[in-house]
């Protein structure tokens, strides 16, 4: 290729602009969505959960969750009225295929769906050494697969046990609150598949969201409030024995 010095010098600014575009990366996926207008959370109504496992299956289908790992799962609690502080908890295959009948009857029995609590002051983002996990401006805790080095600090830091290391990609993974859906105006896959409305996506910044009326009129709790994580998955009818 024959090029004069002048031609090369003239091409340099164009090359610089092109390199800038490469560094800038992909454009915004949902152009009408403004992160500053939302603050996402979820409402879980335990009195409505029937333990069908629809949410677990839906989550796996939507997010390609590897077999044996869970971004959301359902636990069954059996609390004896003689030993309130020591419940028996089971979750066969995360509750994906439902729950077999309990041999032991009596006591108090109920289901607790669990998932990432999308904490406002999340311990997992605080321990990440490379800035691969973060809270978005709309309050969702996400993992940057490209930046994650698979050190597992965040998995240990999460008080709710919501993270796992994807065996294929060797990066930390967890519930994204279906970020690819809620930014398009859809609800999460688990909420879409829940037949009883036990799960409700909640936008805490939207004054018209039914969550506000619900929080005013019900005794709603979060899991492990003493950890001061700013958890945003609110549980209605939560028993004191739930850990």
């Amino acid at each position, binding site marked *: 290729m024959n090029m004069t010095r002048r031609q090369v010098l003239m091409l340099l600014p164009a090359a610089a602009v092109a390199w800038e575009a490469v560094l800038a*990366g992909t454009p915004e996926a949902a152009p009408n969505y403004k992160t500053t207008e939302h603050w996402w959370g979820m409402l879980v109504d335990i009195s409505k959960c029937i333990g069908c496992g629809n949410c677990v299956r839906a989550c796996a*289908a939507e997010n390609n969750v590897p077999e044996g790992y869970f971004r959301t799962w359902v636990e069954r609690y059996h609390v004896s009225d003689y030993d309130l502080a020591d419940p028996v908890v089971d979750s066969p295959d995360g509750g994906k295929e439902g729950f077999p009948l309990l041999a032991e009857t009596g006591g108090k029995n109920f289901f607790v769906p669990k998932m990432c609590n999308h904490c406002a002051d999340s311990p997992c983002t605080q321990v990440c050494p490379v*800035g691969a996990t973060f809270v978005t401006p709309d309050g969702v805790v996400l993992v940057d697969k490209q930046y994650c080095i698979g050190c597992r600090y965040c998995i240990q830091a999460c008080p709710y046990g919501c993270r796992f290391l994807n065996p294929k990609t060797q990066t930390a993974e967890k519930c994204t609150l279906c970020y*690819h859906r809620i930014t398009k105006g*859809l609800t999460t896959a688990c909420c879409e598949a829940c037949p009883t409305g036990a799960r409700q996506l909640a936008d805490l910044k939207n004054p018209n969201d039914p969550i506000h009326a619900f929080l005013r009129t019900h005794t709603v709790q979060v899991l492990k409030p003493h950890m001061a994580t700013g958890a945003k998955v609110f549980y209605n009818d939560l028993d004191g024995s739930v850990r």
Partner: protein
Amino acid sequence: MSRFKDSEHLLRVALVFGVGIIAFVVVRTLLVPRSFGEFGHYRGNAIAEIAAQPVQFAGHQACEACHSDIVEMKNAGKHAGVNCEACHGALAKHTEDPGTVQPMKLNTAILCVRCHEVNGARPKSFPQIVAKEHNGGDLPCETCHQPHSPLLVPGAKP
């Protein structure tokens, strides 16, 4: 003059440091993505990349656009609050190409008991059956119940 007679050494060291600092700044600019630090200590573009993941569940609004007759029947019955994809599964591909991607035929003998088989941990007010006693365990539920509006079909034997 004699005080600075070996200043050449210092200049050389300073030069090496200068080159090192410039090299560090250049390499850092090339390696750190442009969007890092846009919103915080993370790659800002990661948000858009995660948001760009394709959806699998179309959402009930998409179903209602075409299947208004079934939605009407469903909303009049006990299953009004149950979204289509709760039973039929993820069908975003069907909404994109309704002609070629067809939903699977469901087996009501397996599907219905996921929710309605008796289980002590289910809320007491939720309708539950013991399938073995109710229908022998393998009779399809739609023999008597229309799944979209599950109260007994008129004329069916209870």
